[in-house]
């Protein structure tokens, strides 16, 4: 017998969970937004200006202009990933925030969906700030770029699903590191952020096709650079199918973990 039948979910209660995260964020955004965005900005500067001095042109673009949209994409990935791995782990095990929520008219489903909404929000905020910086540096080429932050919603949702799934399987916080070293860092390096994967051997391209970040990059780069093609739809569809299939997974896993 299970009192929390499948899909005991209320959008309003999930929104309440999201609101709690917003309340917390209001206290910390000043310090976190700078430190979190330092990372992609350092890559942009170091590789864009540094390596860019040696790399002639990449797909007919100055190197820094090529990697800028890629780094907007990766900021979406890291924002949702940090939120749903380290932060979620702390909320489950150390601060026991979810336990407190579940004593109220909030179910585990509301918690998980609310957290996904928040991770998505954070991804969207970061993509927006990154886009502003990239635009200020004169690296944006098209008005379509304003759609790039909206990809924070779909991309953030995708990486929140992955992060929550992993976190629900964790026993200790040290295991979070594996996720970054074995999954996030390879995605960052092999998903077309720093070089196009189209001309690489078939096998590498096949691996790239499995990478969630690759599809995000392949949507955001054309938007920022104004090079729209129908191919974008394939990448959009890939992400949409991914979230539709996998969203229920962390909901079920976390229910097993939180309801005993």
């Amino acid at each position, binding site marked *: 017998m*299970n*009192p*929390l039948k499948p899909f005991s979910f209320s959008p309003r209660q999930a929104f309440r969970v999201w*609101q709690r995260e917003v309340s917390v964020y209001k*206290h910390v955004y000043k310090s976190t937004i700078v430190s979190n965005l330092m990372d992609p900005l350092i890559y942009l500067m170091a590789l864009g200006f540094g390596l860019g001095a040696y790399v002639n042109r990449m797909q007919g673009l100055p190197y820094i202009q090529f990697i800028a949209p890629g780094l907007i994409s990766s900021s979406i990935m890291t924002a949702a990933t940090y939120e749903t791995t380290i932060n979620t782990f702390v909320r489950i095990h150390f601060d026991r925030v979810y336990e*407190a929520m*579940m*004593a*109220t*008219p909030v179910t585990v489903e509301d918690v998980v969906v609310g957290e996904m909404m928040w991770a998505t929000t954070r991804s969207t905020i970061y993509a927006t700030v990154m886009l502003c910086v990239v635009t200020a540096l004169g690296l944006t080429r098209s008005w379509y770029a304003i759609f790039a932050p909206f990809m924070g919603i779909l991309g953030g949702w995708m990486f929140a699903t992955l992060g929550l799934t992993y976190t629900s399987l964790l026993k200790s916080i040290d295991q979070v590191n594996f996720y970054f070293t074995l999954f996030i860092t390879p995605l960052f390096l092999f998903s077309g952020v720093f070089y196009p994967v189209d001309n690489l051997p078939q096998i590498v391209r096949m691996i790239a096709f499995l990478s969630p970040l690759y599809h995000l990059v392949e949507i955001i780069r054309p938007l920022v650079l104004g090079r729209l093609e129908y191919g974008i739809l394939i990448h959009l569809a890939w992400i949409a199918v991914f979230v539709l299939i996998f969203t229920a997974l962390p909901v079920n896993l976390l229910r097993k973990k939180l309801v005993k």
Partner: protein
Amino acid sequence: MAADNSIVQARGLRKSFGIMEAVRGIDFDVKPSECFGFLGPNGAGKTTTMRMIGCVSPSTSGSLKVFGLDTQNSGRKIKQRLGVVPQEANLDEELPVEENLTVYARFFNIPSSVAQDRSKELLEFMELTEKRRARVSELSGGMRRRLLISRAMMNNPDLMILDEPTTGLDPQARHLVWDKLFELKKRGVTQIVTTHYMDEAEQLCDRLAIMDQGQIVENDTPQSLVQKHIGREVLEIRLPEKEKYQVLSLNTELIKGHDSYRDLLILYSDDADKLLEVIKNTTTNTDYTIVRRSGLEDVFLKLTGRRLNE
């Protein structure tokens, strides 16, 4: 028992975790405006029972109704009217004190203006107004507990469940918490409390269920429990084994019952002084004797044993 107006009604309630049976078929009723206590050693199943009442842990079998609603499928409705004070503080460390209350109120869909007023009122009531902008980590243990209780009151609950509300507090803080809980009771809020402190149970509870190894071994008012199992007074004597038997074989109505632990003989009586006189006639070995009033602790130890369960 009149089941109709019960706030909580459990029948044959069980909970297993794998092969471990934490709660083994318990029945109890909690009536409106009373303070009902679960008293028992660690591992007796008190917290598990509380979690089932709080609709956060599904029961394995049996029935459990809160406000007449089934906990198995009305969790949200029940939780809307509950105030839960957990055993370990799970305050929101990422938010300052006052927001711990206002953000929590949102989960009950309380309008923010109402939540603002109520949080001010509760911080005042719990003597935390000065700390309203402080971080949770700056609070002492007693303040945290008071904040937890305030938080549980944000939705004006009809039933509060408090799991060991004063464990780990110093005597001053305990008395302040008791005082506040007593005020709540006067306002008509039904309370369920778990504790392993006898004085707490005596102070707070109108009725008690003594739990041991997942079962309720007794269920009555504190006074009746003491009267029924112990009597008015207790006489403690340390004696060699052989003389213990001599004392116990005394044919007197003064001994209502007894317990024995190592060289200690504990005799339950309605007149311990008189009993001591009688005993002094049979043995000279009465250097260590204590005559004292009986209490809940005597009942507790008699019913749950003197050995550690851990």
